């Protein structure tokens, strides 16, 4: 077995144990959340104008979907289901499989969060390199300030700001949703165009919110690398500026890959505020609604998905780092 394979096996074993522990802890916590969702549903329906009798009827039958048995029995059922990749049925959408709901929401999270993250990463690292190289100039200052400002601005403030400007004051983009419902879904230009139009605001928010972090991290990394001996050696050897730039960028970007891989794992958690403000039905909004509805099975499924994604992202980050950094690889082989 090679060093990398041994390392991977170790990661997978630890990851599996981690998932098991987190699943158990989250199961207990979820089942311990106080609150009577059915009573709350009844009161809401009454407030919305339904007669008490109708509201009673609309809620009473839902009790049948609540988990039954002791906590241990519920846990045993849950783990048995997990072995068969069965996360159970949703309580808030009775009859719907949790896996179906998660898969549907994941679609609307992966697309904008991934695009937003990659966009902010690409722009952030390029601007970060410039900010480091030009750190004594006005351009450097402007880039650094833009990074600090956007990094410090909470996501929901940014989302509200963009929403107010581009959907209300200048109604260029839709206020919410995923696509124009009148268009036939499919791989056709009109529908894809609509998907892009509806996703623009969430993507822009993700991208702007992430940009600040990337530019600051890259700038700091580049400044560190610029002081290394090999850069001085390259300059003394009279290498072209472009080549030196590549040396700097390739070495400075290494630590950011780890963060990027972890960010991709975290994207499965969705972005609750952004999704809520733009009514974008991703995993964050699903999780939020499941908590409000006390949909235990859906909450459990969402937490499991996030846990698995983060564990995998950690493993990928570690393996990737081993693969892309020859110093780490050669160090392991030597040991």
């Amino acid at each position, binding site marked *: 077995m090679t060093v990398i394979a041994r390392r991977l096996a170790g990661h997978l074993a630890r990851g599996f144990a981690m998932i098991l522990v987190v699943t158990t802890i989250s199961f207990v916590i979820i089942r311990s959340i*106080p*609150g*009577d969702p059915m*009573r*709350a*549903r009844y*009161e809401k*329906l009454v407030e*919305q*104008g*339904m*007669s*008490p*009798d*109708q509201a*009673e*009827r609309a809620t*009473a*039958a*839902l009790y*049948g979907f609540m988990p039954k048995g002791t906590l241990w029995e519920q846990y045993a059922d849950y783990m048995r289901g997990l072995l068969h990749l069965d996360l159970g*049925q949703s309580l*808030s*959408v*009775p*009859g*719907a499989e949790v896996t179906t709901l998660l*898969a*549907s929401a*994941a*679609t*609307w999270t*992966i*697309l904008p969060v*991934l695009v937003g993250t*990659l966009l902010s990463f690409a722009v952030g690292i390029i601007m970060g390199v410039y900010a480091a190289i030009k750190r004594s100039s006005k351009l450097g200052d402007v880039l650094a300030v833009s990074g600090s400002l956007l990094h410090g601005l909470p996501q929901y403030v940014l989302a509200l700001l963009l929403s107010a400007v581009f959907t*209300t004051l200048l*109604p260029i983009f839709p206020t*919410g*949703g995923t*696509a124009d*419902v*009148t268009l036939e*879904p499919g*791989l056709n230009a009109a*529908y*894809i165009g609509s*998907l892009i139009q509806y996703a623009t605001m969430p993507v822009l928010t993700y991208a702007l919110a992430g940009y600040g972090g990337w530019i600051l991290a890259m700038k700091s990394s580049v400044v560190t690398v610029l002081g290394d001996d090999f850069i001085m050696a390259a300059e003394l050897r009279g290498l072209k500026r472009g080549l030196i730039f590549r040396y700097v960028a390739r070495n400075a970007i290494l630590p950011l*890959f780890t963060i990027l891989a972890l960010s*991709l794992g975290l994207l499965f958690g969705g972005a609750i505020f952004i999704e*809520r403000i733009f*009514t974008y*039905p991703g995993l964050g909004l699903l999780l939020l*609604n499941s908590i*409000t509805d*006390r949909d235990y099975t859906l909450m459990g499924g969402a937490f499991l998905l996030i846990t698995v994604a983060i564990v995998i992202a950690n493993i*990928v980050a570690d393996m*990737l780092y081993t*693969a*892309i950094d020859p110093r780490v690889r050669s160090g392991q082989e030597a040991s």
Partner: protein
Amino acid sequence: MKRLVAAAVSLCFAAVTAACGGGADGADSSASVGSAVFTTIDALKPGIDANAPINPYNPKGNTFRGYNAEWLGWTKNHLTDPDRFYPGVAKSWQIAPDRSSITIRLHPDGKWSDGRPITAEDVKFSIGLAYTQGGTAYALDPSAAGTASNIKIVDDKTIKITQTAENPSSAFVRGVMETVIVPKHVWGSVLPADFWERLKVAQSDAPGAEAARAGITSLAEKVIAFAPAQDVSAGPFVLKRVNPGEALLVKNRYFHNAANVAADQVRILNYTGNEQVWNYLVAGRLDSAPFTAVPAGVMRRIVQTQGNAVVRGYSPVSEALAFNQSRRPYDNVHVRRALAYLIDREQVTKVASPEGGTASVTTSGLHQEAAKAWLGDGFAALEPYRTDPARAERELRAAGMKKKDGRWTMPDGSPWKMTINVPASFSDWLAGAKAVTSQLNDAGIEAEVITSADYPLYLEEMAAGKYDLGFWLVALGPAPYNIYQRLYGAQNGWQLFGGKLTHVAPGTKGNWMGGAETVDLAGEGRINLGELTVKLNSAPEAEQKKIVSTLARAANQDLPVIQLWDYVNTQVVNTTRFSGFPGDDSDALRLTSGVWLQLGMVKRK
């Protein structure tokens, strides 16, 4: 790097493919893009879920009342009479004078959206489904009041439903008329072939009745989870497509009144919070929006949008500050009265619900509009509890409370700290509670607001008797039983099981109000409030009036709650594309715009 990018691109591709798959698409479309489109939201269904079935029994089901979910009749918004309806699947109905039965005639040309006729068999089958869900008209317990005991198909388009003679209820007629009607030819497999025989056993005292009841109740889950392959609607619209952002419905060309339905398509937009509804309204996107709590500043911007107009009407709901009378000093009526005299309800309403409420004139358990209709001259005789600090001080002293250094203390001199609990997410309740505590602090009573994380937690803790005071909806009319059940029902100790009324001790079985079982009322002697409330279910109208008068005076005298504001049904319509919306105080205002469209009220411009 390349691997990471490849993984990211693969994820993106998978997401795009899934997104392009779209949502449910289960209807025949007869309308084309570009025709008259009516845009709205469904207040009963915030959070559209494209994965939910096209099922009216499912809480997230993609059926929308008045559009593609059709009741026998649509209840009018009346101050006192719960048995007035607009036609739905039923064209006309005849209620027996003693409300013992209702004979329903369907529209002779009524058809499902697949072209098949709507028959009395469909209605009977839908009633069968309703039995699995329960409710007054469809209870399985033989001793329950107002249960439909006999369902007789008179002919293909006529059906007669009779309620149990032993234990009648005034809620029976409304219970029947609010039955959602689904097509038997689509739903037929959900009920077992011997369902009606099982029901007969379940509604009897025969051996095996309990098992039969359990069997029928267990069908509830099957009914709720049932997912028809496509929408077959009795309403004016049929679901064409739904995605996570909105639902698209197209006109049902077989609807009996299709020629007068002004819209060819309806878009129902998804929303997760009130602020999204405000944005839709400011942008002028909605042709109609049902009641949503709106701050005054936002309302000003909404009405500035071209075509937007505000319509206001009666809403049988009031907001009240409810006491836990098993806790000191709120067990003392003088303390409750003192608080009523100290709270300036006008100010509280101005802060909490300036657009959607009017300050309550007094506390009677009734919305002030309904109170005038029920009580007549008796309404003026009620104590109005106008702001009066001097009287409040007298009441507090009568309760034995003491004042030290300008602050009120308990009779034994220990500090009195009043806490009001509200759910954190209810901005109007929170604002109202803060306004109340601010006024009380100014009057020398140490008061604070404590928020609960969310509504389910609030209700659970309230039911467990953990709060001194909390906000509570009352006056849920028009049925008088429903109105007073909020004051003298389970939360105040009265439990009704199998037609038998009992009173449980405060702090047990959800009795968080902790009021006394009987009270002395001037001119009436000792009365049992819960018993009187239950009587409202079956009493004739004249007796109902007497009971309502007694209960209103009792609520006014003993103050189990202090009514703060009466809700006003404030809606926004946009007259740019359509006209003919119901006006102020219309009895159709609490119905969905789908009902307005199907009745032909709304016209295309």
